[in-house]
């Protein structure tokens, strides 16, 4: 692997390699010395054109645990606000000797552009582009689910996939890169995905995605589900009226106290509730649900560091004079 741009063309083998590597990286967090020398002397640039707390900090922690040098770049307060183009920014970083670029951009496809051009000769990791993909988030979600699933099914913690797991992804699918990345990755790993959203918050062409679509959260829960992932209502991207009121949204599509109770009444004691964060408490998820023992929100954040360590390690170690394994359409089908 040279770049990690999307989960759509990530092969099953590579996905499991990342998850297995992350499992070993997670052990480092429990040690006395929480640092590995693997990427000593390498430089990782966090290139963030869009606001982010956990993703940037998570990548920074991951790179530092692997002993890489980290340069943080936020578009605010940089020459981007003076009108510098992506190309010039990339070439500047290249001249400074960046080995990997972690990029978040408001434009869908910006990481692909960076990886496909010769502007910069570095590994590119997509940390979220527009409403397109957020592969490391999907990988950390899959990692969290796999730990839960392997404990339930009694399979080993490494090498396995999510075959047979039923996952519901509910909320603002239209604007969610997390949902897109998860749909592709979970499909690859063998889980069954149901998207639950009001029709106005589903993208055009969703019927061609490898998942089922429902408009009714209660019905989806009643049919049985092993993980419910609530998506954030992305107010900052909503420039039209997608639902009448926040109260109506939270009653019909939010994970409220009633639905938390419904899980207990339906006997689904092992169903987990996930959220990629940041949460709008009271809108798409109630405080009781977010703080319940079913919630994996903090585990997801913790696992994020391990998964990003794995991605950085797999991208940055190894000999690039070899033909790099480019993720391509052929490897997935």
């Amino acid at each position, binding site marked *: 692997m040279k770049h990690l741009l999307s989960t759509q063309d990530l092969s099953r083998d590579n996905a499991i390699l990342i998850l297995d590597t992350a499992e*070993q990286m997670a052990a480092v967090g429990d040690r006395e010395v929480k640092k*590995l020398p693997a990427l000593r002397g390498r430089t990782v640039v966090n290139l963030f054109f869009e606001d982010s707390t956990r993703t940037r900090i998570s990548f920074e922690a991951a790179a530092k645990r*692997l002993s890489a040098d980290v340069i943080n770049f936020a578009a605010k307060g940089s020459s981007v606000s003076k009108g510098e183009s992506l190309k010039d920014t990339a070439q500047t970083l290249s001249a400074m000797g960046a080995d990997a670029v972690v990029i978040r951009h408001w434009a869908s496809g910006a990481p692909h552009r960076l990886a496909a051009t010769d502007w910069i000769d570095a590994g590119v990791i997509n940390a979220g582009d527009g409403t397109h993909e957020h592969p490391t988030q999907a990988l950390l979600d899959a990692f969290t689910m796999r730990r839960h699933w392997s404990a339930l099914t009694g399979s080993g913690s490494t090498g396995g996939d999510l075959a047979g797991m039923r996952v519901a992804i509910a909320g603002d699918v239209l604007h969610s890169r997390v949902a897109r990345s998860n749909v592709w990755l979970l499909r690859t790993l063998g889980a069954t995905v149901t998207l639950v959203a009001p029709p106005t918050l589903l993208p055009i062409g969703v019927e061609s995605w490898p998942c089922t679509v429902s408009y009714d959260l209660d019905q989806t829960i009643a049919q049985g589900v092993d993980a419910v992932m609530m998506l954030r209502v992305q107010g900052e991207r909503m420039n039209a009226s997608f639902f009448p009121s926040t109260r109506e949204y939270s009653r019909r599509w939010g994970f409220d106290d009633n639905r938390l109770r419904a899980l207990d009444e339906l006997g689904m004691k092992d169903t987990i509730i996930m959220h990629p964060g940041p949460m709008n408490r009271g809108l798409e998820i109630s405080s009781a649900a977010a703080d319940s023992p079913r919630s994996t929100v903090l585990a997801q954040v913790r696992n994020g560091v391990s998964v990003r360590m794995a991605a950085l390690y797999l991208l940055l170690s190894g000999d690039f004079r070899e033909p790099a394994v480019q993720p391509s359409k052929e490897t997935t089908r």
Partner: protein
Amino acid sequence: MTSFANTPIPARVVLNQADIDRALTRIAHELLEANKGPRDLVLLGIPRRGYPLAVRLAEKIAAADATVDPAHIVGQLDVTMFRDDLSRQPTRPPLATVLPQSGIDDKVVVLVDDVLYSGRTIRAALDALVDLGRPRIVRLAVLIDRGHRELPIRADHVGKNLPTAAVEKVRVHLTETDTVDGIPTDEVVIEGSV
């Protein structure tokens, strides 16, 4: 003289199952002797083949001294992330590091590996150990010492010294990790010798 450089030369078996077993039995007793008993002994195998060797050594130590529980003195030490050739080789996925419950602080840690060659794996293992704790003593036990050291490292316990040429390859096959023609086999072979 005709060149044999391109003719495949059959692998030569230098240690068979009984030889490996005898060597391990001897090393197990040497460990007990050098340590004056099993006190504080911890065996850490380096993946992949050092680990099954460490398990076998622990069982032999337990057979010689009934107070020892083999499961409590064996661990696995992955050194992948500490190697100095990470950027020169294809990416290696890291493997698990598992320490015995008692940890390694103030213990007599014996690193166990199959072949000692350049010494670079052991250097990485020493670095990895430092991050995990502070053993009282660190020793090294290997099944094969084939020479060609690139670092000032030596083994305390050696199953067999095997003088080799650099072009030759020493392959250790263990029933736990390898099959030869589909059958799990214990043997040490030299390939590529002239």
